[in-house]
Every structure is written in structure tokens, then in C-alpha cells.
């Protein structure tokens, strides 16, 4: 009992610093050692000269009694040895330089006094910056993020499967980034999953014998496919069966010769959430969807689905959008679990159908849960093919009925079933005919081919094939294992392997071999140990470490990884490793060439996507649910689409070399049919996002008017000016407002003054004199300027209100005074203001965030010099994002 007590109390009082990177005191001391007296005299100087000034002008509002904006100055450390204090001192300096503090209505220091403080702070901050820079180690060792792990496993095994689905999401730093090295820990839970994932991967993708299984081939003419799903117990399934090569070729030939033939066309779906009852139930016919069962498949392998399809365009020029999913219908067909393979605009005319190809790893497809009932249609793997273009006049549900086929046994055996079948078919035909008359687009399916290749991707040989002629003698086996193991380790560790660490793994193999007597098992388990090794899970690990010497730069291999994980989010490729091996990569010209080469590779889209997502904090998008009551035509597809828009837009600006100021305002946008319609822009056909010129003086343009950001910063019913304001300050201007103070009062509850006020008016109340004002007058105006955009990002001249079912409308007022007093009206003025008055600040914000992302840690005072250089180069390039990224890659902060 006594010993237990000690354990518990000792442990509960233990705590460690998680979020702050304490500046090394040793480094500071070292710095001070160059002028031993400076610290002492500095302190004296502070107490005699600075402290009285601060006391006189600052501590009334930032002292022991009041801490405006949560800032307290009298307790700050004058020697600038604490990170947190450095940041505040920097703010103090900025405020003094800008003349913003003390506030206009307070006593002002003389110019001489102001200069005195500014000079002292400037020099102190420079010293702190230098100390910080020198104390930094050149190693950037950190755990891979979940995405990086997934991509790395895909690269290592050369397979496009998902590896990381069981790993818990990564921590998110205060600035919104998911690669902060200080936060990326490995918990025991993660370690368990790493082990499990590694075992599965090794057992699936390391082969000890060549694959003998033939691919499974299906050729399905849709008119041959029939099954009734009206009644589970009468289910008559004629699921297609795989064909041999010859038969498959023959069916394909016949299909090509006979020309296209179609059964029921697939019509669009209405916008908005589909009726839940019967949604995606195979047991109810849906006019937009065809499904087909896949009875025989390989659980590990790749499935290619080739669909020969054509379109009847709509009268308005719309074209069908074909979505292909693979998954399970289970239970009585009322549950559904599917994985999307892809989507495509279908434009081929009916007399010339075109083959569209989709791929999926079978590992990722939802599997039958109940292997015994594999003969039941419901527990069978299904391919779902849908027309997901949206049209308000589309008919979704034809009510109870069946897609039964007149030739099905059920129809053949029972006259009344046959009659019902014929009736239902007529009903479906007549509804489709009506939709065609109405000018809706239709999707026609001619045939479907399915090819399932076991293990590897079609045409590819497995990357990790063990030569199984190892023989029975342990020495022979060890020799084979050694060769294989070295190759595997070097790829996994992304660098050459030192003899010592190699020997350690060989010993592990021999130990396994002696206890299990199984070559295969022993090698597999050794490979598993490679995949849970810190050298695999941590980026930039070294073995022959020179990293203790902080002056020495990173090794060429560390550089190779640093580049490839920034730009590709996966391991370096052969060329990078080769340049690392020869040492050429440390040459700045070579490095620059490599960065350019990598940016031209499509893998760099991963960087653009990931950075843009985190910079804009799109992770918060799912936290808001759009109200179906207010927005009946909003649906998940639209939500997903709007989420793609900012990334597509950022990618376009980056790839086209357009100035980054386009992010603030642009005369083009990335749109498709649905989004153009959502925004009330001229109709365009097709659902692939593409660059579209905006009409003259359009309210759209730049990221501020993009639906994802407006929705994410709404409450799902109405706009949310405060959230929008905070977002603009944080993400666009990099001038985050201080956190709300503790124990703030609520806005007066049901204050009679509040009744009948618009949201803007109520928020203005926020800014009446009182504790909220100081901050909110800096926040709210930015959001109020966006009041013309509702919760889904559509333009609104009026606000719609629903109260007890009654609808009322109120006009929108987006006129507001910005914090500096400038009156503006709406988003056009806001963008103009940002472009003209805040251009540099916005551009520097992007540079700051991109550097933060590239470093995998918060930017601090030690990076100031680098950041200044990066800003200059970015501006000189006319704000070219690619130039910005290259400037970051070549900066000291990134390279050393």
C-alpha cells in the first residue's frame, strides 16, 4: 500500500511541456558569454530605464489588475529567454512601431521615450533571434504523419491500397498544421496498429512464389443481367460468372460487332438529400442507378471496371455524370456500404458509346460480412453505377416495384409475377420517357467488363518477390534473407544501412529461424520489425549520426527525404537517392533542379492539396451541418464539391503561375455545372471542375467567396460574421485576435433592445463600450462585409428566416466600418481593400504559413531573417507561388 501511494503521487505531479519548444538556456548562456557583462548590465538597464516607462504607459491595461487582450507586460522576462515572452515582446514592438499603442485616448510617451523602448526591444529581439537560430539542430527528426505513412507504404510496396485507416488522426497545431514535430508522438495504441498494419502488408505484398492465379474476367451485357429483389425469399439471382480468356474475348468481339444496345437509361437525381427511406436500397428501383453483383473475386488484388456508356444530353446542354461505386448491400438491402471508384462526365453519343475505366484495390472494397450467405444477392459484392448529375425535375423514386426481368425464373414460374414485372417495366419506361421529353439528360449503359487481378496491379510484377530457391540449409536461407533484407531496409529507411543495424536485423532473422524453423515466417517477421522501427516511422533518422553537431548540415539523405516529404509526401525516388549517394544533392543548383523536377511531377499535387487544406483550415468543414430545413436542395455531394473548390483553385493559381493575389480576387473560378448553378453563374455543362472566366464585375472571385469557407464559417442556417471575421484575421491576414478572456458575460439575455435586431445589428451591440469591444471591433467588420453570403455561400439580397414554419425575409446590410475606420460595402470593397491596402500583409501571411508547413514546426523569431528573404523573393516574382515554395526550399531555415 505504501509503495503504491508513492507511485501514484509521484506520477500525478509529473508533467511535461508539450506545446512550447523551450529555447535552450545553454544556447543563450553561450551567446551571453561573448560579452559576459552584457546580461548583468542589461538587466540593470532594464530595471532603471525600461521598467519605469512600461509601468507608466502600459501596465494600467496590461498589468496585474487588467490584462487587455490577455497581455500582461510587467511579468514578462526582460532577458527574452522564454519563447512565449519573446512572441509577446515582438507584439509589443510591432504595436510601438505602428504607433498603435498606447491607444490614442491614453497618455502618450514622448518620441524620445518611444525610440528608447523600440531600440532596446529591437536589439534584444535580434539577440534572441540569433541565439535561437544557432541553437537549432540540423536534424528535423519527426514521426511521419498518417498521410505520409500511407503514401510511404504505397511507395514501398508499389500498390495503391489504403494502409492507414486504423491510425488515429494526427494532432493539429495551434496554427492548424498536422505535421508539427513537437506534437507528433507515438502512443502505444499507434504502435499496436503499426504492428498490425505491417503484418498485413508484409503478408499481402511480399511474395515467396510467383503468382499463378489468372485474372478473373467478366463481360456483362446489361440486358442479360436480371434479378428480382422484390422479395428476399423469392430472390432469383443470376449473378454473372467469370469467363475464361477465350470466351471473354469472344463476348467482347460480339459486343463490338453487334453495336450498342441499351436497357433502361439512368436519369439524373433531384438536388438535396434523397429520401432516406429506401435510399440506395437495392430492393426498390431507382431510376438513376444500376447495380450488378460480383459473385467471385479475389480479396487482395486490383479490380478494373470498364463501362461502355453513352449519353443523351439534356436540352439545357447538361450531360450525365457517371459515378461508380463498389460495396455491399446487406441485411434486407437496407444497409449500404460503398467505396467510390470515381466519376466521369459522359458525352459519347448513343451510336458511338465509349469505354470508361475505373480501378479499385480489392483490399479497400467493403467485403461481405456473412460469407455463408454469399449466394444471397444482399450479401454479395456489388458494383453500383449511377447518373449523379442533378436536376430539379428529376424523379427519384418510382415507388414500390421491381426491376425484375421477364425471363427470370420468378416471372417464368408465376404468371402474376410476370404481369407485375411487365407493369413495372412499363411504368419505369414511361417515367423515363417523360423525363426525356422534359429535356433531362440520360445515361446509357451498353456493357460492363470487370477484370480482377490477384495481388499486384494489372501488368505489374510484385515488387517484393523472394527467390524461393533458398534450400533447406540455414546458411543458404540466411544468404537469401540477407540480400532481400538489405534491399528492403534501404528502401524502407530511405538511406544506406549501416553494418551494425543490418547485422542486428539479420540476427533477429536467425533467431526467428531457429525458433520457428520457417524461412518464410522468419523473413516476414523480420520485415515487420523494419516497418515498426524508428528508422522507418521517423523521417530523417540517421545511423552514423553527426547530428549532435548542430553546425553540420543535414546529410544528403536527410535532404532527399526533406524534399520528397515536403513535395510528394512520400519517400524519395531513385533519382533523389542517387543524387544523395553521390553527394550532389547538397549543391544548391542540383537541389533547385530537383525541386523543379518534383514540382512538375503530379505527386506534388499532394503538397498543394495538403498545404491548402491546412492553411485554410478546411478540417473544420465537417463540423458544420447545413440545415435541410433552410436549404432543402443542399446535399452531401454539393458539400464535397465545395470542399474541392478551394484546393482546385489554389492548384490552378500555383500551376498557372498566376499571381497569388488571385487568391484574394480573381476574374476566374474553378467551376462545374453544379457549382455554377449554386453560385447563380451562367450555365456550364459537365461536372469536372475547370477554370471558367467570371462575368464582368462578378461577386465571385478569390477564396473569400468560395462556398466551403463561407459554409464552414456559418452556423448551418445563417452566416456567422464573427467566425468569418476571425477566419479572415487568422488565415488571410495572419493577425489572429487574442483568445476571449475568461469569464466573459453572455450577450445580455433577451435584452428588449435586442429583439427584432438583425444579426449584424446584434453583433454591433457586441462592439458597444464594454469588455467585448476592444477585440470585437477588430473582428466583426471583416465578417459583416460578407453578409451577402448565406450559410451555403449563395449570394443573398435578403436573409430568409423560418419561425414556426413561417417564412419571413429581412434585407441584408453589409455596410461596415473596418477597424481602421474605412467605410466599406460588401465583399467587392473588402477585396479591393485587401488588394490595395493589405496586399503585402496577405502575401506575407501565405509565406509564413507555407514556411510553417515546410518546417513542420511553428515559425519563430530565429526564422526572421529567412522569412524576410523569402518575402522579398516572393514579392519580386510578382507573387508566384512556385517561386515562394522554391525560396522556402532554398532557405537556411529549411536546409539547415
Amino acid at each position: 500500500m505504501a509503495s503504491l501511494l508513492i507511485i501514484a503521487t509521484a506520477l500525478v505531479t509529473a508533467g511535461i511541456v508539450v506545446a512550447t519548444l523551450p529555447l535552450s538556456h545553454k544556447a543563450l548562456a553561450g551567446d551571453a558569454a561573448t560579452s559576459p557583462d552584457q546580461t548583468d548590465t542589461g538587466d540593470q538597464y532594464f530595471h532603471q530605464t525600461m521598467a519605469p516607462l512600461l509601468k507608466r504607459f502600459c501596465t494600467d491595461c496590461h498589468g496585474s489588475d487588467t490584462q487587455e487582450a490577455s497581455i500582461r507586460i510587467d511579468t514578462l522576462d526582460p532577458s527574452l529567454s522564454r519563447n512565449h515572452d519573446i512572441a509577446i515582446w515582438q507584439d509589443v514592438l510591432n504595436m510601438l512601431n505602428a504607433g498603435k499603442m498606447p491607444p490614442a485616448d491614453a497618455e502618450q510617451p514622448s518620441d524620445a521615450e518611444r525610440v528608447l523602448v523600440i531600440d532596446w526591444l529591437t536589439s534584444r529581439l535580434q539577440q534572441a533571434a540569433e541565439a535561437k537560430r544557432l541553437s537549432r539542430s540540423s536534424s528535423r527528426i519527426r514521426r511521419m504523419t498518417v498521410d505520409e505513412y500511407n503514401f510511404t507504404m504505397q511507395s514501398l510496396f508499389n500498390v495503391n491500397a489504403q494502409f492507414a485507416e486504423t491510425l488515429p488522426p494526427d494532432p493539429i497545431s495551434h496554427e492548424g498544421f498536422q505535421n508539427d514535430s513537437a506534437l507528433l508522438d507515438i502512443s502505444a495504441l499507434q504502435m499496436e496498429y503499426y504492428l498490425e498494419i505491417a503484418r498485413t502488408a508484409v503478408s499481402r505484398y511480399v511474395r515467396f512464389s510467383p503468382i499463378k492465379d489468372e485474372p478473373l474476367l467478366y463481360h456483362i451485357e446489361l440486358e442479360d443481367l436480371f434479378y428480382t429483389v422484390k422479395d428476399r425469399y423469392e430472390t432469383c439471382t443470376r449473378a454473372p460468372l467469370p469467363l475464361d480468356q477465350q470466351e471473354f474475348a469472344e463476348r467482347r468481339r460480339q459486343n463490338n460487332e453487334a453495336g450498342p444496345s441499351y436497357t433502361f437509361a439512368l436519369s439524373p437525381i433531384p438536388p438535396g438529400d434523397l429520401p432516406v427511406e429506401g435510399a440506395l436500397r437495392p430492393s426498390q428501383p431507382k431510376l438513376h442507378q444500376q447495380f450488378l453483383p460480383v459473385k467471385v473475386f479475389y480479396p487482395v488484388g486490383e479490380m478494373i471496371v470498364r463501362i461502355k456508356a453513352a449519353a443523351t444530353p439534356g436540352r439545357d446542354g447538361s450531360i450525365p455524370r457517371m459515378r461508380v461505386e463498389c460495396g455491399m448491400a446487406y441485411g434486407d438491402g437496407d444497409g449500404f456500404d460503398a467505396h467510390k471508384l470515381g466519376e466521369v462526365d459522359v458525352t459519347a453519343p448513343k451510336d458511338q458509346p465509349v469505354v470508361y475505366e475505373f480501378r479499385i484495390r480489392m483490399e479497400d472494397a467493403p467485403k461481405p460480412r456473412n460469407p455463408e450467405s454469399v449466394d444471397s444477392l444482399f450479401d454479395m459484392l456489388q458494383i453500383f453505377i449511377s447518373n449523379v448529375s442533378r436536376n430539379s425535375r428529376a424523379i427519384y423514386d418510382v415507388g414500390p416495384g421491381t426491376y425484375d426481368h421477364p425471363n427470370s425464373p420468378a416471372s417464368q414460374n408465376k404468371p402474376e409475377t410476370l404481369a407485375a414485372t411487365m407493369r413495372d417495366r412499363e411504368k419505369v419506361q414511361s417515367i423515363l420517357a417523360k423525363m426525356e421529353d422534359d429535356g433531362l439528360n440520360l445515361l446509357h449503359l451498353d456493357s460492363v467488363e470487370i477484370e480482377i487481378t490477384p495481388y499486384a496491379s494489372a501488368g505489374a510484377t510484385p515488387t517484393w518477390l523472394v527467390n524461393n530457391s533458398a534450400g533447406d540449409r540455414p546458411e543458404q536461407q540466411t544468404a537469401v534473407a540477407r540480400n532481400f533484407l538489405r534491399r528492403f531496409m534501404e528502401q524502407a529507411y530511405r538511406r544506406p544501412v549501416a553494418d551494425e543495424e543490418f547485422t542486428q536485423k539479420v540476427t533477429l532473422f536467425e533467431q526467428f529461424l531457429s525458433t520457428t524453423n520457417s524461412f518464410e515466417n522468419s523473413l516476414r517477421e523480420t520485415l515487420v520489425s523494419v516497418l515498426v522501427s524508428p528508422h522507418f516511422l521517423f523521417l530523417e533518422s540517421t545511423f552514423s549520426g553527426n547530428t549532435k553537431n548542430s553546425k553540420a548540415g543535414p546529410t544528403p539523405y536527410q535532404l532527399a527525404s526533406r524534399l520528397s516529404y515536403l513535395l510528394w509526401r512520400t519517400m524519395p525516388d531513385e533519382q533523389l537517392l542517387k543524387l544523395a549517394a553521390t553527394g550532389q544533392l547538397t549543391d544548391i543548383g542540383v537541389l533547385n533542379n530537383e525541386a523543379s523536377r518534383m514540382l512538375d511531377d503530379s505527386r506534388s499535387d499532394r503538397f498543394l492539396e495538403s498545404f491548402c487544406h491546412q492553411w485554410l483550415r478546411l478540417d473544420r468543414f465537417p463540423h458544420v451541418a447545413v440545415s435541410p430545413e433552410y436549404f432543402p436542395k443542399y446535399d452531401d455531394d454539393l458539400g464535397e464539391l465545395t470542399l474541392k473548390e478551394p484546393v482546385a483553385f489554389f492548384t490552378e493559381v500555383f500551376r498557372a503561375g498566376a499571381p497569388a493575389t488571385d487568391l484574394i480576387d480573381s476574374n476566374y473560378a474553378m467551376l462545374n455545372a453544379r457549382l455554377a448553378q449554386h453560385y447563380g453563374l451562367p450555365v456550364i455543362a459537365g461536372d469536372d471542375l475547370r477554370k471558367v472566366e467570371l462575368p464582368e464585375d462578378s461577386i465571385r472571385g478569390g477564396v473569400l467567396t468560395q462556398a466551403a469557407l463561407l459554409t464552414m464559417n456559418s452556423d448551418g442556417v445563417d452566416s456567422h460574421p464573427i467566425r468569418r471575421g476571425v477566419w479572415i484575421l487568422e488565415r488571410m491576414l495572419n493577425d489572429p485576435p487574442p483568445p476571449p478572456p475568461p469569464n466573459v458575460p453572455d450577450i445580455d439575455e433577451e435584452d428588449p433592445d435586442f429583439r427584432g435586431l438583425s444579426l449584424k445589428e446584434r453583433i454591433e451591440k457586441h462592439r458597444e463600450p464594454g469588455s467585448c469591444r476592444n477585440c470585437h471591433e477588430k473582428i466583426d467588420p471583416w465578417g459583416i462585409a460578407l453578409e451577402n453570403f448565406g450559410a451555403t455561400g449563395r449570394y443573398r439580397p435578403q436573409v430568409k428566416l423560418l419561425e414556426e414554419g413561417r417564412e419571413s425575409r429581412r434585407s441584408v446590410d453589409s455596410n461596415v466600418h473596418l477597424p481602421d475606420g474605412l467605410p466599406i460595402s460588401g465583399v467587392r470593397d473588402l477585396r479591393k481593400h485587401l488588394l490595395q491596402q493589405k496586399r503585402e500583409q496577405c502575401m506575407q501571411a501565405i509565406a509564413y504559413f507555407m514556411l510553417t508547413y515546410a518546417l513542420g514546426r511553428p515559425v519563430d523569431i530565429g526564422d526572421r531573417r529567412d522569412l524576410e528573404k523569402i518575402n522579398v523573393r516572393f514579392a519580386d516574382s510578382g507573387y508566384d507561388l512556385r517561386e515562394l515554395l522554391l525560396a522556402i526550399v532554398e532557405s537556411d531555415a529549411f536546409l539547415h
Partner: protein
Amino acid sequence: MQRTNRRIFLNSLGATLILPTLPSATRRMAGSRVLGSEPSRDSVENDKNSVRRFCCIYFPNGVSLPPKDHPAHEDWHWFPHETGSDYRLTKVLESLAPFRSELTILSGLSHPATRSMVGHATGDTFLTGADQSKNYVNSVSLDQVLASVVGGQTRFPSLTLSSDGGVGTPGRAKTMSFTFSGKPIPSLSNPRQIFNRMFGVSERSLEEQRQAFGQDRSILDSVLSEARTLKNHLAGSDQKRLDEYMTSVREIERRLARADHWLDVQKPLVDENHFDLDVTPAEGGEDYIRVILDLMYMAMLTDSTRSITYQITSEDAKGIGDRFPNTIGLKGHHNLSHGAGNKNGYEDWAKYDQFLTNQLAYFLQRLQADEDPEGDGTLLDNTMVYYGCGTSRTHQAVNYPLILAGARNMGLKHGQHRRFEESTIPISNLYVAMLQQLGVPVDQFADSTGSLDEILA
């Protein structure tokens, strides 16, 4: 993705659940074998009277507390207006009526260190009591203290859940559990993943699994030695990066030692068809929360673990659960908490509080409905359910709304609303009392100044 409501109620569980047949003697023996490797902990007896479980359910953003002169004050105030045993449950709490004698409502308590902090930043310390008012530091959470003592007696020492998964952002953590070194423990949020972890049956034979455990140990030894060498090569500040890795590897080594003997114990056979494992938090508030509560209940019933935390959503508007109120026609939770000034603002907020209380009532009802296979009385009698939030009204980190339920066999005195003078008693004092009743003989936790014995019978 559309989904139909497939929620399944676990009414007929008793008939289908196959619990491992394990005579208490075997368990004691098994238990002592594990405990034997940790001699300081063998004081914990493992008989029927000492099955003690803990489970924390956390919600964010405070609760609706309409002021005195407000028309909603009487009915929609979270805290009952009266104290002692004659209190009346407000509308918010009325679904707890059947459990009145099984629970205590606590008011006035808070962590002293959070009283000067922004309310939203208080979730991280709710179960730890760390002082984050100056720096972000954290310390061990109550559930992990318990797990360190009783964890060896169950297949899983503890279970950490949330609606978001992962660890979130410091200050807005998406987990309630922190290790002894103050590191956040990632939470699980996917019902299927939780189910598979708890109840999934391995396809490998016992012999294969045993062999795998042995191989795991060799693998872990191997990577631990790699980590040690790597750490020696690193500069001081980078060495920290490997500490948590090494701690985790050692933790798994300990788990393997336990898991090895658990191999002889058949995993409980739980039919997954009793759970709607495919529901996602974005799809359904109640559907999702209840499947998590069902899994927690099942973990208790099968004695798979004795220490569970579940964060319904993270503080602020920073978690998926912020949208749960939408499923009952209300605005986002954070908005509700800031919208008291709106028309019906207090009522709307309180309606969501009521919704949350209903989920607690559901959980208590589940625990009360079953005899405890491992101990005397019902599951509820041997489970301490701690429900609450780290702020009263939003941004105000004092007077936490708290309910302590169950654990009749642990000597709690229930049936009362106990009001403590606001901001006088560190809530850690409550945690000392709770830990002691849970069988962990501590006399201190974080900043405690004593034990809140008022909660005891």
C-alpha cells in the same frame, strides 16, 4: 452518403452474448500471475467485491443556466434549484428520475488553475487537474491512474473514446485521457474499429497467436535497441522525440505479457449485428452516441476493461459533435452556448443539455439492467459513472456541472444535490475520494488539498 436508420436496440443481448466461462478461481490465479510481475500492485484483491469500474462521459461548452429573473430559470436551469435530497430535477435532468437514488449532482466545484482560463481550454485538464494557466503542460488523467492499478485484471487496461478520434489540438484536445508523462492518448471514434479491438476474433489459432506474441516481443526488443542507438546520435532537443516511442514500445511489451495469459481466456463472443457499427458521427447525433455507449456498456459487461473515457465532443466548435444538436433541430453546440441572448436562447441550449442527459440516462439504464457477471449486484453498482463538463456557462471555468452515478458497492452516498461553495474546493479533492473508492489508495491527486469525503456514505 445516405443511410437508413438501422439502429438496433440491444434488448435481447442476454440471450446471445457468450461470456467467457471463467471460474473466479481461475481468474484470481490468472490475475495474480500478471500482478506477480508488478509486485507493488498485488495489494489489490481480486475477489467479487473488488470489481470496480470507472467511466467518464464528457461534453463541452457548459450548460444553460438562465438567470433568476428569466422565464426559463425555473425549468431549464441545468442545476436543480434545491440542494439536499429533496431537490427537484429540472426539465434538463428529468430523464434521470429513475436513477435518483443512484446518483449525486454536484455543483460549485472546479479546478483552481482553470478558474482564470478561457473556458474552452479546460477540457484537457478536466480529468488531470494540471495547471495550464501559464504553459501548456499536462499530467496523468484519473482513468489512467486507475488503469495503472487494475488494468492488469482485464484484457484492455483502459479504453479512450471520442466522437472525433485522435488527440486534437493542445487546449482543444479530442481525448480525455493523458499518460503519466502528460501526453494525450489518442481516442478511437469509429464504432467498427472499437468493436474489432474489443471483441474481434482473431483468425489465427491460439498456437499461432502465442507464437506471434513471442515474435512481437523479439521485434519490440529489436526496435527498442534501434531507438536507443538513434537517440544517442541525436541532439538534446531531438532526443525527446524518441522518448514517447520508447515508452510506447515498453508499454506494449507489458501488454504482451498480459495478453499472453489472456490468450487462454476466450474472448467474449459478441454479435456485431447488435450494433450499428457503420454509423458515423456526421450522420447521427443520438444514433452515434448510443452506439458508443452500447460499446462501452458491452466492454463493461464482458469485463474487457474497467476504465473508459468518452468525450462526446471537444471544446469550442472544434469537433464533429458540434453538429449533434442539428439532429434535433437546434443550432451547433458552440453557437447555442453563445446564443443565450437570442429568442429562446436558454431554452434551446437547455434542450440540447436535456438531449445529452437523455443519453446518460440511457447508459445508466443499460448498466442497471444487467447483473454484474463479475461482482455483486448490477453493473451500475460496480461502475462509477462520472458525467460532466469543464465549464458552467461557456467561457466560465467555474462551477462545473457534474453528475456522479452508480458505484453503490463503492460506498458513495447518492440521492442528493450537493452544492459546494463556488470556487473554494479543488475538484481534485473529489478525484482523491473517487480514486480511493475505486480502490486506488492515493491521498493526493494533482493539486488536491484533501479528500471530498462528503460524497461518501
